[in-house]
C-alpha cells in the first residue's frame, strides 16, 4: 500500500507540474485529419495549409507555437478546458460559437458542396459546377436549395459532427433526408463508399482532398458550390474569451499575412484557388 500511495502521489505531482500557458508559448490544437487544411504525414509530423500559415503567422505575432492533435468534435470544450490555447481546424466563425469562445479575424473563406459516388442518382445534380450564394437569410437560401432539394428525398447525407454544415443540413434537408453525423472525415467517407450514406457535405477544398485520396476514385463532386454569408465571415482561429491579448496578437499577424499575399500563395499551393476572405 505504501508503494502504491507514493506512486499515485508522484503521478499527481507530475501532472500538476505541467507548464502553464504563458503569453509567449502557445499550444495550438488541430485535428491532423482534415486535409488539405491540416493533415498528418506517415511519420507523424503535421502539414497542411493551416499548419504552414501558422508557422508563418506565429513569428509575426512573436509567439512560440507548438502543435497538438485532438478530435474535432470536442475542440471547443477542450479549448475551454485548457487542453490547448488555440483551435486551428477549419473552424467557421458563427454567432453560436462566439457565445462560448472568441475568434481571430478570418484567414480563409471557402464554398461548401456535396460529394457522391459516380454511379449514384445524385451525381450530376442540377446546378453542378456553378456557384450559388447562400446569404444566411432563411427565405433566400430555401429558394436556392429548392432547385436540387427534390433529388435528396429519402436519401441519407453524411456530415462531420459539430460543424456548421450540420445545422444547415438539418434546417433545409432535414425534412426530406436523413442526416448522419460522423466523428471523423475518414469514417464519413468510408460510409459513402460502403453505401451507407448517399452523399457527403463538406467544405469544397476538403472534399477535393477526399476525392484525391486512394480508394475514393469513385467519388465525384456534385451540385453547386455554395458560398456566402451563411457560413459566417469565414474560418478563423478559436481562442478562449479571456485571452484577449492573444487575440490582438493573432489578429495583427493574420492581417499582415493577408495584406502581403502570404495567405493567397499558400492557398493556391494547397487548394489551387484563393481562399483569402473578402474584406
Amino acid at each position, binding site marked *: *500500500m505504501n508503494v*502504491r500511495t507514493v506512486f499515485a502521489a508522484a503521478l499527481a505531482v507530475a501532472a500538476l507540474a505541467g507548464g*502553464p500557458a504563458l503569453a509567449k508559448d502557445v499550444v495550438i490544437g488541430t485535428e491532423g485529419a482534415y486535409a488539405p487544411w491540416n493533415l498528418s504525414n506517415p511519420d507523424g509530423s503535421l502539414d497542411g495549409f493551416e499548419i504552414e500559415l501558422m508557422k508563418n503567422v506565429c513569428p509575426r505575432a512573436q509567439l512560440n507555437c507548438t502543435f497538438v492533435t485532438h*478530435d474535432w468534435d470536442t475542440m471547443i470544450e477542450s479549448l475551454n478546458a485548457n487542453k490547448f490555447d488555440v483551435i486551428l481546424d477549419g473552424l467557421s466563425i458563427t454567432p453560436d460559437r462566439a457565445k462560448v469562445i472568441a475568434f481571430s479575424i478570418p484567414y480563409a473563406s471557402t464554398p461548401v458542396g456535396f460529394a457522391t459516388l459516380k454511379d449514384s442518382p445524385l451525381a450530376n445534380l442540377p446546378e453542378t459546377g456553378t456557384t450559388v450564394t447562400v446569404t444566411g437569410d432563411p427565405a433566400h437560401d430555401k429558394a436556392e436549395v429548392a432547385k436540387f432539394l427534390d433529388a435528396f428525398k429519402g436519401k441519407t447525407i453524411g456530415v462531420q459532427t459539430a460543424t456548421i454544415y450540420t445545422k444547415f443540413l438539418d434546417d433545409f434537408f432535414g425534412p426530406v433526408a436523413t442526416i448522419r453525423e460522423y466523428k471523423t472525415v475518414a469514417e464519413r467517407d468510408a460510409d459513402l463508399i460502403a453505401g451507407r450514406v448517399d452523399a457527403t457535405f463538406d467544405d469544397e477544398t476538403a472534399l477535393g482532398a477526399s476525392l484525391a485520396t486512394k480508394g475514393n476514385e469513385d467519388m465525384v463532386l456534385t451540385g453547386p458550390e455554395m458560398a456566402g454569408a451563411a457560413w459566417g465571415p469565414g474560418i478563423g482561429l478559436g481562442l478562449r474569451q479571456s485571452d484577449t491579448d492573444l487575440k490582438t496578437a493573432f489578429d495583427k499577424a493574420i492581417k499582415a499575412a493577408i495584406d502581403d499575399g502570404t495567405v493567397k500563395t499558400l492557398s493556391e499551393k494547397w487548394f489551387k484557388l484563393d481562399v483569402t476572405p473578402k474584406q
Partner: protein
Amino acid sequence: MIDFSLLGFGQGGWGAWLLAGAVMTLVVTLCALFIGAVVGALVAAAKLSKRRLWRVVGDTYTTIFRGVPELLIIYLIYFGGSGAIGAFGNLFGNKGLSPPAFLVGAVGVGLISASYQAEVFRGSFMAVAAGEIEAARALGMSRLLRFRRIIVPQVWRFSLPGLGNVWQLSLKDSALISVTGLAELMRQSQVAAGSTHLYFTFYVAGGVLYLVLTALSDRAFGVAERRVARSFRGSLGRG
C-alpha cells in the same frame, strides 16, 4: 486481404506505431490499477465499517461506478476534471492548468476498477481467519502493525484471482480512453485505419494485439496464483 507489409517496421509500416500503442495501453492500465487499488481499499474499508454512514458511502460509490457506463465516466472526468483542476490551478495563479489525457484515462479506469477491487478486497478481508486477528490483538500488536503484518499479506494473496479478473476488465476498458486522444492501442489503430482507409487490417491487428496482452496477462496471473497457492497448502489459512 491483409497486406502484411503495412504491419511491418520498415518504411510505411505501422508496426512500431501499433506496438507503441500497446505499450501505452499496458502502462495506463497499470497506473489505473494502482489508483484503483488505493481507492478500492478505502471503499472496502468503508463497506466493512461499523458505522452505517461509511457503509452507505461505500455502497453509493459502487452503485455509481457500476451503474454508469464507463464511456460517460471517462468523458465526465475528461471535461469535469479539467474544470476542477483548472479552478484549482487558478487558485495558485497557474492559469493554463489541465490534466493530461494519460492522467484522465488512468484515473477514469482506476475509479471504475476500484469499485470491483473493493468487492474483491472486501471478500478477501472477510476470509482472513478471525482467530489470527484475535491472536494479533492478544500479542499486543498495534493496529498499524497488525494491518501490515497480518492482514495485508493474507488479503493480497486471497485477492489475486479476483484482481486478475479486474486487470483483464481494465485492460479492455482502457480502449475507451481513446476518446480523450491518448495514443493507446485503440486510438493508434483508429488513426492508422483512417489514414490508410484499411479499416479491416488495422482493427484486426489491434484486436490481435489486445488478445496477446490478454493471453500474456492470463499466463502471468496463473503463474502468480500458483506460487501464492503454495502458502495455502494444508490448512488454507482459514482456521
